[in-house]
Structure formats: C-alpha cells, structure tokens
C-alpha cells in the first residue's frame, strides 16, 4: 500500500522540483529584468553630416592638402547671399569688398563682405529676435581661462547706431556649395570689423606666424584704424586681433 502511495506523490514532487529548478535557471539570479547591454562596446557609428561640412575640427589643424583657392564671389552673388537673410536691411558696400574662406573651420566656404545698414531700419536690424548675431569685434574675446568676465558686463550685443556706417557681414557656408547654398543662413553682423584691404589669410599660412590667437579657421587680414591685424573666429563669435596686444602663453612650470 505504501508503494502505491509513494509513486504518484513522488512524481508530483519531482515534477514540481524540476519545474522550480527550471524557473530558477530561466531567471537571472538577481531580481528584476536586466537592462539590455549596449549593442557595441565602442561608439555607435557617427551620424552623417552634411557633405563637405565638419570634415575638419573647428579648433584643430587642417592636415589635408591646402585646397585650391575658392572661386571668388561676384557682386551679384554676394548681394544674393546678403538678401537671403538680411533682405533690404543692409546693402553691399560700393565698390564691393568681399572675401571668402573657411572662417569657422568646418570645411565649408564662408563669405564676408562690407555692408552699409539702412539707417531707417535700425530697429529691425537691432531686433532681439533678428536672424543674425550682432557683435563688436573689438569686445569679443577668446575663451578666457581666468573666467572672470561678468556675463552682464560689456556690450556683448551692441546696438547698431546712426554712426555705424560700415559693418561686416559674415555668412557661414553649408555643405559643398558653401555660402552659395540657400541653406547657408548662419550669419554675423559685426561692428569694428570691416577694415581696409580685406584679404583671406588661410589658417595654414597663419600657423607659421608667431603672434596669433588660437585659430579655428581662416582669418581676414585687414587694417582697421591704421592698425594691421586680422579678424578670426573664436568658436562663438568673430574677434579682432591686434598683434601689438599679443601676449605669449606663459611657460609651463615644472615643479620638479
């Protein structure tokens, strides 16, 4: 009788234990679901960027061969690029003063041109919601390691006034077509930046110059107020560099 009793019960117990063991193996030792591990241990392939852009580090050296000089802009092309963003608020200087280069170091050609503001439309030009970034090249500084600048001090966004007869517009290029691309609409409207004798100085050529700031792209060599210097992109805005104010980085200190 005991044999008959033990057989079905043992089967049930065995099945139960087997099932529990199966459950134990099927679940992780720790409770709860496990987060899916990253697909790859290293970076996911970088996203695509517009052709011709971002090929070079904005803050780095360009190690590709010096590109052929970009085709110069005609006055009509410059006016067309200007009107794309500024409409009729500013007009191209006459005679036209236009330079092209990769000023922001993204691998796409940019354009800079001297312009005159329409004094009757200063309110629109100075609008807080304007589609351009207004700066005074003389007050823009490179990132300062001392970090002592009060963000509320200084005319970071100056007003274009009645006395501002001559301004500089820089339009950043986009893709292979550069500043000619209709999508090229990132632009700066700059005071104290449209000098005399503007010409492009490639970053590569300036690397050989001793007195220079950290460069992310080509610069505009020119003379402002009788002083020869150049305009360069800091990564956030355009700044005027006067070689007379150059201070070399202090030598590194080795404590031992």
């Amino acid at each position: 009788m005991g044999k008959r009793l033990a057989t079905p019960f043992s089967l049930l117990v065995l099945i139960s234990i087997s099932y529990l063991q199966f459950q134990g193996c099927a679940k992780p030792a720790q409770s709860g679901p496990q987060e899916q591990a990253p697909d790859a241990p290293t970076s996911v392939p970088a996203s695509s960027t517009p052709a011709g852009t971002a090929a070079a580090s904005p803050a780095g050296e360009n190690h590709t061969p010096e590109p052929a000089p970009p085709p110069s802009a005609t006055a009509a092309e410059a006016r067309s690029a200007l009107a794309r963003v500024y409409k009729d608020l500013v007009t191209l200087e006459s005679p036209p003063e236009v330079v092209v280069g990769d000023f922001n170091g993204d691998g796409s050609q940019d354009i800079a041109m001297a312009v005159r503001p329409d004094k009757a439309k200063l309110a629109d030009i100075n609008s807080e919601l304007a589609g351009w970034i207004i700066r005074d090249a003389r007050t823009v500084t490179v990132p300062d390691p001392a970090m002592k600048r009060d963000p509320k001090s200084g005319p970071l966004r100056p007003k274009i006034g009645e006395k501002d007869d001559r301004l500089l517009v820089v339009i950043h290029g986009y893709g292979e077509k550069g500043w000619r691309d209709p999508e090229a609409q990132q632009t700066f409207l700059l005071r104290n930046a449209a000098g005399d004798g503007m010409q492009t100085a490639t970053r590569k050529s300036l690397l050989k110059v001793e007195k220079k700031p950290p460069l992310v792209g080509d610069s505009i060599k020119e003379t402002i107020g009788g002083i020869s210097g150049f305009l360069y992109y800091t990564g956030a805005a355009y700044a005027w560099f006067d070689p007379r104010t150059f201070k070399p980085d202090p030598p590194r200190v080795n404590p031992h």
Partner: protein
Amino acid sequence: MLAQTQARRFNEQGVSNWVPVGSLELLRLMETYNPLEQCVQAFSRRNLRNMKCLKILFLVLFAAALVSPFALTSKVEGQAATEAPTTDLNQLTDDLNNGFVSPTEFDVVKGAFEEVDGIPEGLGPCYNSDACSQCHQTPDIGGASQISEFRAGHIDGGGAFVDAPGGSLINDRALAAAIQERVSSADPVRTFRITLGTFGDGFVEAIANSTLQNNVAAQPVGQRGTLISVPVSEAPGQNRIGRFGWKDQQASLLSFSGDAYLNEMGITNRFNPTENTSNGNSVAAFDTVPDPEDTANDIDEFTEFMRALRAPSRLPTNAQIIQGQNLFDALGCDICHTPTFTTAQQGTLINGGAFTVPAALGSKIIHPFSDFALHNVGTGDGIVQNGGQGTANQVRTPPLWGLRGRIRLMHDGETLTVNEAILRHGGQAQGIRNNYNALAVADKQAVIAFLLSI
C-alpha cells in the same frame, strides 16, 4: 548608514523580488505542511477521503506553482508609468527630494553635496572647486552655475586630437602657485564647458539603453545622434550608453561622482585612486593625504543626492506657450531635443548590473528635451574624451528642462539669449535653425516663451 540604506532599499524591491521568492515560498509551504507525513498517516488510517483532499491540494499547489511566475511577471511588466515628481526651481521652497531616500537621509546627502572640503580631506593639489555645490548651485542645490571648466589639447600629425599634457582638463586652481596648470600655445584646441544641472538625473540614469537607442534610430539620418558606450566604474568590465556630461562621458551617477571628485576637486576615490598631475608633472610634493583620499566614500552620498533630485517643473501653459510647443515640434527641434522618455521599470538592473531601479525612479515619465546623444551642430568643441576621434566636434544635446534657470547657454556658455543660442546651431541642425529663422517675430516669441517654460 549607507549599508543600512542599501539593505533597506534591497528589501524595498517589492514586486520584482516576488518572482523567484514566490516559487521558493511554495517549497517552504510544502515543507511546513509536511504533506508526505500527512499522507502516510492518512493512508495508514486508510482514510481515503483525506487522501482525495490531499491530492486536490497537491494539484492546486502544483498549478499555482506553474501559474504564479507568469502572473507575477506580468504584474511587473504591467506597471503603469507615472509623471516624475518635479521641483519648482526655487531655493526658497523645500521640494527637491523625489522619494528615492527618506527626508532625513536626503538632508544628510544634501549636506555632503554642500560640504566644503579642504586639504585634510584631500582637496587638490590641482582642482576647480572645493564643493559640489560650488558649481551645482543655482537655482537650487544640484543645479548649475556660470562656472565653466576649461579643456585644451592639439591635433597631431595624423589629424587626431591629443590631450594637453596630463589630460585635456586644465584645472583653474591649485594649492600652490608652483603647480598651477597652464595652457600652452602647443595646445590651441581650447574650449570652455559650462556646468550642467543635475536635476532629474536619477531619472535619466534610469532610462534603459534600448530606449535611448530606439529613439536615436528613429531620427532622420541627417539629424541622427551618436550614442557612445562607456565604462561603468562600479561594474568593472561593463559598458553602458553614456548620458552624462557634455561628451556623454559617463553612464552612471556613481561613475560621474567619482570622476568629478577627482577631476574637479582633486580628491582621489575608490574608482579613481591616482592623483592628477599638473600639466603632466607630478604633484606628489604637494599631496599630503594618502590615496584614495575619499575614505568615507563621499561619492556614494553625492550619488544618492543626485538620484534623489526631482526633475525641473514646467510652468503653467498658456496660448503662447502651447503655440510655441507646436512650433518647436513643427520646426524639428524635437528630433534631438526629445520631449519625453519613460524610465525603465522598477526592478530593472542597470549600470552593468550594479544598480536596481527603485520604485521612486522606475516607470517615470520625464520631459528632458534631450536625446542624450552626441551631435555636430557646428559649435565644436574639438575635444575628444571617451567617444573616439569621430566625436571631437560633437556635443551632447543639452537637456532643455530648467532652461529658465540659466543665463549662459551652449556648451561654452558664450551665448546669453535663447534666440542667439538657436542661431548658433549649424551642422546637423542647419535646416531646423533656418526653419526657426523663417518664422515671424510673434512665432519666434512663442518658441522662446515655450523654451523658458520647460
């Protein structure tokens, strides 16, 4: 205190623990009732009626054993997501704790976050600040500030970014002038990185890898972000999708705490036991505390504090804000500034298995307005950390929640208005910026009103 907390937290796992425990309890139940003995006794008394009852009991128990794991599992998966608790971003109100820790414990870990460390605690020799809250302070403790860190390096002959000697981070302070770090003209790649807020970061940490990956995969090719997989300090050999820092260089808040304690405050800890140098030169002569200096494991308290922080609240909407939100989506801003995520469910193991998502952080709906991926929007910054050379000019999409509590914008803090921050977008955001630029003034105002409401 920490050990107790962890034990308590482990016990609070609740539902997620029921799956295996439920099955084990079934065994214990069988042991307690000792059915074999009862059966033997029953048959010894030839009580067939009792035997039938026992058979039924066994069958019921067996069926319960079969069904219970599935029933309990579906209960876990069926957790309804709820909105994450928020803070009003006002230091005058006491509303930071999201419930991850008790109010008493929150005060303790908040105190640790605000504690000023000195030389006896291992501060320096090179450092940026002497307390977490020095940088993460506004508009409430755990937020951000105007303080930036400075990084530098150069491009080598092969076109690859190379750190400045001793690392790309150039500390702004030192215990002695002789070891003050400086930047050299040999390192012309330079950038500032503005402090990021940590509100809601516990929820961000609790977003599953797959959620971030699926979100990025759904982005148009032209705007698709880059997710990088980075080591998790507390889970050696384990990687996870990075989500913290301007370069997505950290995946867990504990890893971030250990990183920041060393690199921002100069305090070595169990994950980072080696002191930084000064421009590559040893600072041993100025270092008086044996490594690791964080003997009390302060980094665990910093982590608890950040995990316990609520997400930034949103202002009440009005017609203009709603219009702005609609435009924000229509322009395509929401492609990278992803409005909403839901965190992993309670009980999910994250951070390489080192952390289990608790009830306070699990299945929470958050609105960070970030995809936590790296993008090239034309702003640089040229620095490579642990994402590889391809990420030199990519930065993480900054979460826009709490934007109204900031003045310095973009990664370098060089932009002071929302309009100009949008105008600085290029690269992958070129077309979207142009969409914004084409808006009428009133529409731009609506977009900005929306951005300053989230």
